[in-house]
């Protein structure tokens, strides 16, 4: 392989798409040629900046799509698919084929397996035999709730047995008033820990009715500082509007203004902070912002506020 050929292989090296021999050869040439290493680094930087420009679905879009899909599938015209051969629900198939005693027997055995599984299986799966595991999985499969087992690891034990670590994800419904203790605990958790930013935004929306509770405000303050999604942070800021005179909230707003990566979020923090213009620390903070702010709009907003307050643009 010559230098030019190696250069053409560099993207595939970064994408881990070279076979063993090619990778060895490219690595050897990389070690020998500085310009090849520079080119590899340029490609790596390029992929990084391109990745940063990827379009993420805006918060809420996924939830909207799911709701729309759910509604469509419940629609008769689409849902009729289930009545087609091969797409029948279990009870349709059962009755279509005629009630058979064999089926009844199988169901009875499944029911027995279910009960046996419930009685005998250690839910933590520390010392479960494969047959018991099957019983456990079958029993859960017969459960109507969605159940998605994932295998995290499989190991050989010294005694010849196999240890399978299974992660179970089960759905359950929690229904109640948003100020119900259990529901609130779930909402507070969801506002911080769910993967879907749309869900976090929706949860914070619900929590805003309970902003008088310190635990709810604490969660929103945490979200404002830590959430990775700017829309979620903006939603949390919206919830804190009425509490902008509280010291913990002002401290969080200060952090946002000086550290948040998103100019829209910083702008909103300015808007909340200047609700309490009488406070002397606002001027100092805005002057501090002027020293480091790079976004034109945020700078202009701070400048206007400082001008209105007859303050200088910077500390001396």
């Amino acid at each position, binding site marked *: 392989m010559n230098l030019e050929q190696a250069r053409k292989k560099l993207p595939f090296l970064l994408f881990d*798409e070279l076979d063993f021999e090619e990778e060895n050869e490219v690595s050897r040439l990389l070690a020998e040629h500085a310009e090849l290493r520079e080119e590899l680094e340029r490609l790596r930087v390029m992929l990084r900046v*391109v990745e940063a420009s990827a379009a993420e679905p805006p918060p809420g879009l996924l939830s909207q799509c799911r709701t729309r899909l759910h509604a469509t*599938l419940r629609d008769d015209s689409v849902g009729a698919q289930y009545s087609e051969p091969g797409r029948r629900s*279990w009870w349709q198939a059962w009755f279509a084929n005629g009630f058979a005693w064999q089926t009844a027997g199988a169901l009875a055995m499944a029911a027995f397996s279910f009960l046996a599984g419930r009685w005998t299986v250690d839910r933590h799966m520390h010392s479960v035999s494969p047959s018991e595991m099957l019983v456990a999985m079958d029993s859960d499969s017969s459960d109507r709730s*969605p159940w998605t087992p994932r295998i995290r690891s499989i190991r050989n034990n010294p005694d010849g047995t196999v240890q399978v670590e299974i992660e179970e994800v089960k759905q359950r419904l929690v229904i109640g008033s948003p100020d119900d203790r259990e529901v609130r605990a779930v909402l507070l958790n969801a506002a911080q820990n769910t993967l879907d930013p749309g869900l976090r935004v929706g949860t914070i929306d619900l929590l805003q009715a309970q902003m008088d509770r310190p635990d709810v405000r604490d969660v929103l303050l945490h979200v404002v500082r830590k959430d990775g999604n700017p829309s979620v942070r903006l939603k949390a800021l919206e919830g804190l509007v009425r509490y902008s005179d509280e010291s913990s909230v002002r401290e969080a707003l200060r952090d946002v203004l000086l550290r948040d990566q*998103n100019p829209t979020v910083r702008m909103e923090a300015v808007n909340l902070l200047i609700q309490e213009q009488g406070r002397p620390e606002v001027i100092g903070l805005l002057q501090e912002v002027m020293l480091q702010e790079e976004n034109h709009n945020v700078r202009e907003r701070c400048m206007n506020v400082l001008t209105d307050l007859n303050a200088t643009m910077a500390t001396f």
Partner: protein
Amino acid sequence: MHTPRPISSEGLLPASIANPEADLIRAAQAGDSDAFETLVRSYDRGVLRIAMNLLRSQEDAADVYQETFVKVYKNLHSFRFDCSFQSWLYRIVTNCCLDMLRKRKVRREEATTVDTEDGLWNRAELLPEDRSHGDPQRLLRNKQLQAKIRETLGLLTDKERMVFELRHFQGMRLRTIGEVLGTSEEAAKTCLFRATQKMRNALGDFL
């Protein structure tokens, strides 16, 4: 003392344990709507992301999401486990995106904004800023770079964009991408090379 070592699950356990997704698919094929919903939720974030990146429009991406999963719903009975479910699903979504691109002639890569329910979002503004120096020249360069990236992505053919999206953002292997796009691994490799070269040439001054 023998140390337990991780081993592959293949061949060790019954299929029902080793591949819970297959159970889910079979359940959905048999008409279990809960299973179908679980399947959707396992993959729909990726589907929406692909559609957003390829179409650069919230509305179009939402339409493709809808179209994709309705097609999956209607045709799941014909899925025969010849390939992975992900490949099958991504083949549907990429075809839907291609159809959308052809039908609506969507070429919005140049736009800096994405329309959302909350109004227009400027993607460039959502990118992390480098605030370490406050160097106006550097800021200007970053803005130019973002504009150039959008312009460059617009230079790629639909297929090159798809291969790049699936490999770079979805982390799929070229062989699988070939399956998804109904082409060979080698053709997918060529597309990826061309896409990377185009971007490398266009962004050369910035790197």
